[in-house]
C-alpha cells in the first residue's frame, strides 16, 4: 500500500516535495503536506499505538484529531495527535505504550487477563492483604498511561494574545466560512478559528473542492482574521473564550460568537470495533481526497442513511471493492453496491488488522462472514456541542437526527452547521450566512433585512430520519464503548448493575468519556449504552457536564512565558564590579555584602561607608490638603513640622496595627517627601491613594521610587566626605540632625536628609536616578582618602540592630501596635482623628501585654530569628532579630516578651532546637545609647 492514488485537484500533498522522517527504526517517505498519520497510512503502517489498559493494537480512525488512536511521542512531546500533526523532515516519531514495539508489544497478554480488571478493579482487587497494594500499584501505574513526560525544560517561547473582535467564528467549515464572509462583508471585525491547517472542515474530504474554494475565497479574502491550527478549548466566565494555537494562547472576548463546531463521527459498538482497519468515514474521505491514500482494498461500509453511500462511492472510484451494510430495511438507497439491508455488523475479526466482519440482523449472535481489510463507520454523527454547553446553551434531543442539538442559545451567540443539525453543505452555508448577518447587525453594521428573511427559510433543518446502529452487538467478544480508556460494553453493564446507573456515575466509576478525546468519539455511544442497560431511551439520558478543555492543550501553552520580575538600581553595575554578593529584596537585587559584613560594619563605625538605598519607596505628596492627608494617615503630628525638617513617622491601620515606618520631609508648606520600606512600596501606594480617594482631599500622591536614586553616606567621617562633594554648608550647626536641604552633590541636584538608620552621622542623598553611577563614583572617589567602603544590607542590619532601630515586617507583625513596639511616643492621641485612633484608645487603656525589647546574650550561641522565649517550658515570646555585635561584644537582638519582663536588666530564656541561652533586657540602644554620634 505504498502506492498513492493519482493526483487530484484540492489535495493537501505536494508530490514534488519529498520528505523523510523516522518511525522508531524505520524511515518513512512522505510528501510535504502529509500529516504523520497520512504518511504512515501510505507506508502501510496499520498499528499506530497500543491501548491504554489492555495494550490492544490500534490504528488510524478519525484523521481529524478527535480520537485517541494515533497519539504518538513526536520529537519528545507525548500524546501528539499524529493524524493532524504535519509531517516534517527529520522528525522522530514513536508509538506509545508499547515495548519493545507497538507491532509486537509483550504486554498484549493483559488483553487475555482482562477478566481480572473489571471496572474499578483498583478499588476491588489487590487491596487485601494491605501489604500487597504498594507492590502492585507501581506495576499497574507503569503499564497504564500514555507516553513519557519529557524531562528537559521546555524553552519554546509562548505568547499570550488577547483579541476582542465584533464577531468570533469557531470552526472554518462550510457554515463558519459562510458566517465569516457575511459578517466581514457587512463591516464587522471577524476572527475565524479552526484547528485544522486549512479552512474547509468536512468539505476538505469531499471529492470536489469547488464549494470549499469558493467559500474560502469569499471568507478569507475579506478583512476577517483567520487563525489556522488554533482550537477553541473552553468558554469561561464573562464569555471569555480560550484557544490554543501554535505556541500561543488566545484569550478572545467577542461581542458575538458563532459556533460552527461541526460534528464528530462515532463508531458502532461491536466486538472488534477497535481493530486497526476499522475507521470512521471522515478518515476515509480525507485519506482518499487529501492525501491520495487508499485505506483498504476490500471495504465494508456501515451506514444508516444515504450519506454513507458517498463514502462507498469514493472508495469504489478509487478502486476498492465495496460492500454496504445498511441499517435501514425499507429500501430507497442508491444502486451500485452489494447491500445487506436491515443488517448491522455483528463483529469484526482479525488480530493485528481487521480481516473479516460478520453481518446479520440486529440482535443476532452470528451472521454471514464477509472478508475485508477496511470497515467504515458512516453511521453515528455527534454534534460537537461541548463549547455550546459551556457557553450556556440548552441542548434538546432531536428524534429525526437522533442527537442532542442546541435549542436555546444565550444572547449574542449562534450555533450553525452540523452542530446545529444541518445535514448538507447547502443548509450549513445558509445557517452560517444568516448568523453572520445577524451578528454584523448586532455590532451596528447595516445589513439587508430581505436577505435575512430569505436565509431563514433556507436554513431550516430538514432530512430523513436517521437509523442508528444498535447500542451493542449480541455477538461475543470485547466491544469498546470508549477506546481512550478501554471501557467495554460489558464493563458498563457490570458497573450499572453495581449501582452506577447514570452517565455521571458511570463516568466517574469506569472513566468512560474521561480519556484524551474528552468524549468526542464515545459520548453518544456511551449514552445510548447507558440508556439500554438501564431501560431508558437515548433521549432520556444526558451527556456528562462539559468542561474545558474540549481539545487537548499543552501545559506550556497555559503556563505561558515564565517571567520573574527583577529590578536593579542605576548603580547595579558598580556593585557587580565591586564583587557584591546579591540578595532579593522584594523584586530588587541588592548587595548583601561586598567583602565581609563585619569588616563593613567596622568601617562604618570607625571611618565612613556608603550604601545604595535607591530601593526605598519614595513619594512626593503635594497639594493644599497634603498636611491634612498626612495628619489623618499617621498618628504623628505634621502640621507643626517646619519646612526643611524631617520627622520619623509610623503608619497604622484602623486596628492600630503598624503598617510601615519611614521619614517624612516637609519640602514646602504644601509639599512633603515620604519614604517607606522597600518591600512595602506598592502596598503603601495603594493604601495612601485609597484613603485620599475616599476622603477626597486635594492632594496629589506621586510614587517617585525608581525616579530617584538614593545613597546613604554614614560614619564619623561622612561630613568630611560630604564637604568635598558640595558647596553647601553641611556642618552640624547649619544642617543638624533631622533636617533636609536641597543642594548640588557632585553637581547633581539632590535632596539631602540628615538621618541615620545605622546610628552614625549620616547623609541620605536622593537624586535623579539617571545620575546613579556618576554619583556613586563621585562619593567613593571623595571618600577614598577617608577609607570609605561600600556596605551591603547585612552590615546595615547589624548596624541598625546595635541602635535598636526596628524593621517593620521583621520585628513587627499583624498584631503589633505602637505602644507594644515602643513607639508610643509618636502617638498624638489628642489629634481630632487619624487611622487607628479609636483602636489605640482601647489599647492604651488596656496597657501592653507584650513588649518589643532589645536584649543582649552571650557570644557563644546566636539564636535564629523566630527562636522561642520560654517560661517554665511554655512559649511566651519570640526573637525577631539577632546578630553578633563586635561593638557591643556578644549577641544583640530584639524580642517580644511578656510586658512584665520588659524592665531593663530582666532576664529570660531563649530556646531553639536543642540550644538555649539567657537574654538580658536592654531598654536603651546597645551602641551610643544617647545618640551623640548620630546627632553630631
Amino acid at each position, binding site marked *: 500500500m505504498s502506492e498513492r492514488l493519482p493526483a487530484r485537484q484540492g489535495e493537501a500533498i505536494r508530490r514534488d516535495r519529498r520528505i523523510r522522517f523516522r518511525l522508531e527504526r524505520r524511515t518513512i517517505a512522505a510528501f510535504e503536506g502529509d500529516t504523520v498519520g497520512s504518511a504512515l497510512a501510505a507506508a502501510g503502517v496499520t498499528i499506530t499505538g497500543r491501548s491504554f489498559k489492555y495494550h490492544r493494537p490500534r490504528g488510524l480512525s478519525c484523521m481529524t484529531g478527535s480520537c485517541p488512536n494515533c497519539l504518538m511521542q513526536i520529537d519528545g512531546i507525548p500524546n501528539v495527535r499524529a493524524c493532524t500533526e504535519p509531517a516534517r523532515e527529520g522528525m522522530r516519531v514513536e508509538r506509545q505504550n508499547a515495548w519493545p514495539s507497538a507491532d509486537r508489544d509483550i504486554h498484549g497478554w493483559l488483553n487475555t487477563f482482562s477478566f481480572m480488571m473489571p471496572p474499578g478493579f483498583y478499588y476491588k482487587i489487590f487491596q487485601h492483604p494491605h501489604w500487597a497494594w504498594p507492590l502492585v500499584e507501581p506495576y499497574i501505574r507503569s503499564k497504564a498511561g500514555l507516553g513519557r513526560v519529557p524531562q528537559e525544560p521546555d524553552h519554546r517561547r509562548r505568547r499570550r494574545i488577547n483579541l476582542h473582535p465584533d464577531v468570533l467564528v469557531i470552526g472554518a467549515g462550510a457554515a463558519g466560512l459562510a458566517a465569516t464572509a457575511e459578517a466581514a462583508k457587512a463591516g464587522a471585525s471577524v476572527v475565524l478559528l479552526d484547528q485544522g491547517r486549512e479552512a474547509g472542515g468536512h468539505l476538505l474530504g469531499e471529492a470536489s473542492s469547488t464549494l470549499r474554494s469558493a467559500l474560502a475565497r469569499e471568507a478569507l479574502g475579506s478583512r476577517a482574521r483567520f487563525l489556522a491550527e488554533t482550537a477553541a478549548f473552553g468558554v469561561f*466566565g*464573562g464569555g471569555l473564550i480560550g484557544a490554543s494555537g501554535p505556541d500561543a494562547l488566545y*484569550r478572545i472576548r467577542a461581542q458575538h460568537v458563532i459556533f460552527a463546531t461541526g460534528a464528530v463521527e462515532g463508531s458502532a459498538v461491536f466486538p472488534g470495533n477497535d481493530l486497526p482497519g476499522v475507521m470512521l468515514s471522515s478518515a476515509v474521505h480525507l485519506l482518499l481526497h487529501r492525501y491520495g491514500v487508499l485505506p483498504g482494498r476490500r471495504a465494508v461500509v456501515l451506514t444508516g442513511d444515504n450519506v454513507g453511500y458517498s463514502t462507498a462511492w469514493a472508495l469504489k472510484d478509487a478502486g476498492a471493492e465495496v460492500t454496504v451494510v445498511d441499517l435501514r430495511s425499507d429500501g430507497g438507497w442508491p444502486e451500485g453496491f452489494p447491500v445487506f439491508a436491515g443488517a448491522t455488523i455483528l463483529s469484526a475479526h482479525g488480530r493485528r488488522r481487521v480481516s473479516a466482519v460478520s453481518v446479520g440482523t440486529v440482535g443476532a449472535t452470528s451472521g454471514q462472514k464477509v472478508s475485508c481489510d477496511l470497515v467504515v463507520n458512516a453511521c453515528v454523527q455527534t454534534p460537537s456541542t461541548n463549547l455550546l454547553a459551556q457557553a450556556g446553551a440548552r441542548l434538546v434531543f432531536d428524534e429525526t437526527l437522533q442527537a442532542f442539538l442546541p435549542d436555546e442559545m444565550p444572547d449574542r451567540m449562534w450555533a450553525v452547521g452540523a452542530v446545529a443539525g444541518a445535514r448538507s453543505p447547502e443548509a450549513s452555508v445558509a445557517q452560517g450566512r444568516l448568523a453572520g448577518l445577524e451578528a454584523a447587525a448586532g455590532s451596528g453594521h447595516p445589513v439587508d433585512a430581505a436577505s435575512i428573511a430569505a436565509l431563514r427559510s433556507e436554513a431550516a433543518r430538514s432530512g430523513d430520519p436517521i437509523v442508528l446502529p444498535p447500542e451493542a452487538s449480541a455477538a461475543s467478544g470485547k466491544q469498546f464503548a470508549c477506546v481512550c480508556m478501554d471501557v467495554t460494553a460489558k464493563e458498563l453493564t457490570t458497573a450499572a448493575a453495581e449501582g452506577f446507573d447514570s452517565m455521571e456515575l458511570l463516568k466517574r466509576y469506569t472513566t468512560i468519556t474521561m480519556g484524551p478525546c474528552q468524549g468526542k468519539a464515545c459520548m453518544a455511544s456511551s449514552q445510548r449504552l447507558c440508556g439500554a442497560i438501564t431501560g431508558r431511551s437515548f433521549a432520556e439520558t444526558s451527556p456528562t457536564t462539559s468542561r474545558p478543555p474540549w481539545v487537548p492543550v499543552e501545559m506550556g501553552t497555559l503556563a505561558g512565558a515564565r517571567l520573574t520580575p527583577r529590578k536593579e538600581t542605576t548603580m547595579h553595575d558598580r556593585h557587580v564590579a565591586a564583587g557584591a554578593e546579591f540578595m532579593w529584596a522584594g523584586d530588587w537585587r541588592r548587595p548583601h555584602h561586598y567583602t565581609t559584613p563585619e569588616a563593613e560594619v567596622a568601617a562604618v563605625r570607625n571611618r565612613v561607608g556608603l550604601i545604595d538605598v535607591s530601593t526605598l519607596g519614595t513619594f512626593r505628596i503635594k497639594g493644599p490638603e497634603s498636611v491634612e492627608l498626612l495628619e489623618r494617615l499617621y498618628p504623628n503630628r505634621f502640621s507643626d513640622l517646619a519646612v526643611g525638617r524631617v520627622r520619623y513617622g509610623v503608619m497604622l491601620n484602623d*486596628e492600630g496595627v503598624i503598617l510601615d515606618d519611614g521619614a517624612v520631609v516637609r519640602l514646602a508648606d504644601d509639599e512633603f517627601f515620604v519614604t517607606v520600606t522597600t518591600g512595602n512600596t506598592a502596598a503603601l501606594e*495603594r493604601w495612601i*491613594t485609597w484613603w485620599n*480617594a475616599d476622603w477626597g482631599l486635594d492632594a496629589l500622591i506621586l510614587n517617585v521610587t525608581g525616579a530617584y536614586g538614593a545613597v546613604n553616606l554614614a560614619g564619623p567621617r561622612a561630613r568630611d566626605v560630604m564637604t568635598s562633594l558640595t558647596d553647601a554648608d553641611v556642618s552640624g550647626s547649619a544642617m543638624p540632625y533631622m533636617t533636609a536641604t536641597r543642594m548640588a552633590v557632585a553637581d547633581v541636584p539632590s535632596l539631602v536628609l540628615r538621618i541615620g538608620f545605622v546610628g552614625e552621622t549620616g547623609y541620605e542623598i536622593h537624586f535623579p536616578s539617571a545620575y546613579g553611577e556618576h554619583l556613586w563614583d563621585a562619593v567613593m572617589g571623595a571618600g577614598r582618602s577617608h577609607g570609605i567602603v561600600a556596605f551591603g544590607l547585612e552590615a546595615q542590619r547589624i548596624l541598625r540592630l546595635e541602635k535598636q532601630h526596628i524593621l517593620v515586617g521583621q520585628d513587627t507583625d499583624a498584631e503589633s501596635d505602637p505602644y507594644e513596639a515602643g513607639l508610643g511616643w509618636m502617638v498624638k492621641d489628642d489629634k*481630632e482623628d487619624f487611622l487607628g*485612633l479609636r483602636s489605640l484608645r*482601647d489599647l492604651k487603656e488596656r496597657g501592653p501585654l507584650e513588649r518589643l525589647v532589645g536584649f543582649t546574650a552571650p557570644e557563644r550561641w546566636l539564636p535564629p530569628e523566630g527562636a522561642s522565649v520560654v517560661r517554665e517550658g511554655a512559649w511566651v515570646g519570640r526573637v525577631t532579630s539577632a546578630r553578633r555585635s563586635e561593638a557591643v561584644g556578644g549577641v544583640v537582638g530584639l524580642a517580644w516578651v511578656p510586658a512584665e519582663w520588659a524592665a531593663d536588666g530582666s532576664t529570660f530564656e531563649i530556646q531553639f532546637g536543642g540550644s538555649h541561652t539567657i537574654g538580658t533586657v536592654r531598654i536603651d540602644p546597645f551602641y551610643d545609647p544617647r545618640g551623640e554620634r548620630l546627632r553630631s
Partner: protein
Amino acid sequence: MTFLITCPNCGPREALEFSFGGETTRRASPSATDRELAAALYFRRNVNGWQTEWWVHQSGCRAWFLAERHTTTNEIRRTYRPQDRPRDEEQEAAPA
C-alpha cells in the same frame, strides 16, 4: 476572575489588571462604641447581589474608583470616580 472592568480613566480592561478593595465601608468615628468599632473593622455585608466596591487599576492608571458589581455573575453595571459618588452613598452606614 476573567471579566472586564471599565476603568473610568482607561476604559474596559481585564480584571487581572485591577486590585480589589472590598465593599464600601464607613470608618468608625473616634467616638464610636466598641460595637460600632468592631462592626466597622470586622463585619461586612457580603451580599449576594449588587454591591458597591472599591477597585484600583493597579496595572494601569493606578487610580481608585468605585464599581457596582453583581457578586454572583460578576456583571458590572457602573463604574465611577470617587468624586462622582452620590452624597448619600458616601454617608452609607455600616451595618450594626
